[in-house]
């Protein structure tokens, strides 16, 4: 995010549990671009994405007591809510497998066009990462994370044996980690 947070994670969780609207506002200001980015990447429709973003933050507000610090960081928890809500929405529209593939392909262009009008985003960093991550590695992460594909679906789309999906995912994320470290 770049800016210095005035609440740490424990304080955020505590504030949310106490229904502190100031904390919630801070949370929104700091995390809504990331969550909106996730939702847009799943849905590709700004109107629907805005509605889902609203739904997600209301889920966070109402469901903070379900957050379990042992299972991961607050941000990850929020990302998962955003991702799952968006994917459920996508599924309910009965999108087909081939559409998923097509969307992944179009996404890259879609978001670069988005980024040109959003100078606040570190788009140099983004394209640098996307360039270094090879296409297959990016696709495997995006199919799983943004499109909610199962291992079977990924094996089918990438034309690889089912048993290798997990190791491919590991390699992709290790590659991502290395790139992030150096960028």
């Amino acid at each position, binding site marked *: *995010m770049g800016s210095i947070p005035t609440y740490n994670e*424990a304080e955020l969780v*505590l504030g949310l*549990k*106490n*229904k502190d*609207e100031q904390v919630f*506002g801070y949370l*929104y*200001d700091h995390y*809504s*671009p*990331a969550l*909106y*980015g*996730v939702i*847009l*990447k799943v849905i590709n429709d700004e109107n629907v*994405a*805005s509605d889902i*973003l*609203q739904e997600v*933050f*209301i889920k966070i*507000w*109402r469901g903070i*007591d379900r957050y379990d610090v*042992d*299972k*991961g*960081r607050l*941000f*990850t928890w929020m*990302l*998962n809510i955003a991702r799952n809500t968006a994917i459920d929405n996508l599924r309910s529209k009965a999108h087909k497998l081939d559409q998923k593939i097509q969307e992944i392909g179009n996404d890259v262009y879609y*978001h670069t066009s*988005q980024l040109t009008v959003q100078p*606040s*985003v570190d788009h140099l960093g*983004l394209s640098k*990462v996307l360039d270094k991550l090879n296409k297959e590695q990016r696709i495997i*992460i995006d199919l*799983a*994370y943004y499109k*909610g*594909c199962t*291992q079977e679906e990924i094996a089918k789309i990438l*034309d690889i*044996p089912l048993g*290798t*999906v*997990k190791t491919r*995912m*590991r*390699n*992709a*994320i290790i590659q*991502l*980690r290395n790139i*992030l470290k150096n960028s």
Partner: protein
Amino acid sequence: MDVNRYISSGIIESYVAGLTSEQESKEVQAYMLQFPEVKQAVDACQQDMERYVNMYAIQPPSVVKDRIFAVINKDENNVATDTVTVVADSPQARIYSIQEHQYEEDAPRPRNIWKYIAAAAIVGIIGCSAAIYKLYTDNQNINEKYQTLLAQGSTLQANNDVMQTKLTEMDEAMAIMRNPAMQKVKMPSAIKEHPEYLATVFFNPKEKAVYLSVDNMPEPPAGQQYQLWAIVKGQKDPVDAGVFDMGDASKSLQKMKAFGDDVVAFAVTLEKKGGSEKPTMPVYIAGKAS
């Protein structure tokens, strides 16, 4: 459980990317509580994902915030009575204790400094030897593991290559069969005792392409091979369309000799290896081209 092996299996990354089944996810969560290494690996991976996700961050339309606050304010007015329990939930913040710094008390002054130096040197030497020995054995272990992994890797690669080839073959076969100009000529058995014999010719008269697919034929005796014949309009004798193999080759489409739309029928006989000029009776299977 071998924790390192578990971590390097790819399950952690798959879990974080949302790829694991419910059961696998529960397993990962259980191991996170049990093994700090697993928790650490999951945390690290989640942070990678967070950073990746952040790269796609986009400012949402500003009205969304107002809408959210309108909803939660309404919420609070309505459920004020119900949620007392939630609010009453006393702050159970985990207060992270400030690390206590322990200041060492003044060290005792050495009376005979050489004694300490000698003792330290001996301890040092023993420590070093032990470390060297450990490094040596570790290295050997790692080497062994590395060799096994290398071997596994090449086996996997080989399997993968085989699968890829098979897949390409199947794709080609699919493409051939899907071609709308392709005619399917079934050749049922011509032998009374074996009505189950069957093979199919895929025949594209336009492109003069003939493929054969074996459905059910026995292995020919040693030194013999099946031969396909085309009965061609205006020709008295059947024309050789090539021999074909059984075994693994029969599992995919086999390309035969080229024929155009003057073919009336196809037939198969058993011939000597390499094929004959004229068919030897009996005809095993045959079918009419439409």
